[in-house]
């Protein structure tokens, strides 16, 4: 009897509890089932229960079967299984997690999190700014191009009443040291007589120096200095006449000769 009790206890530990009534036949049957042993002499024809748990591949992963009569006399046999009962006095035990907890306080923990977020933001902002500025720097002119973009002229070597021509960005630049008579002549022209009205003061920052791009505004020829009907420049290609201020007076050209950006540094002229 004690070994049967042990078997019953084992069955209970195995999370299956058979609450079968204590009839000798049923107990023997239970004993045989739990031992995988069957006494051939005492086979009792009876109803059987069998349950099989199948995995997704169809294989039987667990199998429970029991042969026992469904009734004892007139009484239906109660046969059920349940999960092992939980000992409630021990179910609320909380493991000690102090070893794994942070040593820092609440505010330190939160501030650290925000600090990390902020540091990531700082890195992202810097990276974004640098990529934009690097991209734009890449678009701007390099130092050698910028150095070629300016031309310096020593004006002290240009005598009064003379032209010189220099090259700037692949184009000729006319520089004329005008006499007082030429300045007066340029100022005496009425703006209403001009095709492209511009006063002489708009074209020459210092009246004695006239600086222009030497490209005819008609089709891009280079005009000839000290020629033409108006004492200025004359374009031989299609006969445009420019006056002593470089303004178009006669011929097909639509605009005055262009004035580049320039500045004076003492006796030196910097074009560009």
């Amino acid at each position, binding site marked *: 009897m004690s070994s049967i009790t042990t078997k019953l206890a084992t069955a209970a530990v195995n999370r299956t509890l058979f609450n079968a009534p204590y009839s000798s036949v049923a107990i023997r049957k239970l004993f045989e089932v739990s031992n995988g042993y069957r006494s051939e002499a005492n086979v009792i024809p009876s109803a059987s229960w069998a349950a099989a748990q199948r995995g997704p591949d169809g294989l039987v992963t667990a199998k429970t079967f029991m042969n026992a009569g469904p009734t004892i006399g007139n009484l239906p046999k109660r046969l059920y299984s349940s999960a092992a009962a939980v000992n409630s006095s021990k179910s609320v035990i909380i493991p000690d997690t*102090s070893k794994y*907890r*942070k*040593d*820092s*306080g*609440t*505010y*330190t923990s*939160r*501030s*650290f999190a*925000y*600090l990390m977020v*902020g540091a990531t*933001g*700082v890195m992202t*902002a*810097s990276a974004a*700014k*640098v990529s934009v500025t690097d991209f734009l720097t890449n678009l701007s002119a390099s130092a050698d191009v910028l150095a070629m973009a300016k031309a310096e002229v020593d004006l002290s070597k240009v005598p009064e009443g003379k032209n010189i021509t220099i090259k700037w960005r692949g184009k000729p630049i006319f520089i004329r040291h005008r006499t007082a008579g030429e300045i007066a002549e340029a100022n005496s022209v009425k703006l209403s007589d001009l095709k492209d009205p511009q006063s002489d003061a708009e074209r020459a920052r210092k009246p004695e120096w006239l600086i222009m791009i030497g490209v005819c505004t008609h089709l891009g020829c280079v005009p000839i200095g000290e020629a033409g009907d108006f004492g200025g420049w004359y374009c031989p290609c299609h006969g445009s006449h420019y006056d002593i201020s470089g303004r178009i007076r006669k011929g097909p050209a639509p605009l005055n000769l262009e004035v580049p950006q320039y500045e004076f540094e003492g006796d030196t002229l910097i074009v560009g």
Partner: protein
Amino acid sequence: MPSHLANYSSLNGFSRTLYQTLFKRNTVFLVGIFSTAFVFELGFDTASDRIWDHLNKGKQWKDIKDKYASN
């Protein structure tokens, strides 16, 4: 330090001040991020330029300019 005492430490007090002044309002937090990024970039650029100049001492134009250019 036991965790139940950490809430009263000086570090936690500092963290609390930091949180109240800098992190609590999103506008202040964002302004802080951008200004820190500005300062950080200044410092980073200066430091990296200095390291570069140190590693390439005597090789750059500004180091040998005196030999070739008069002014």
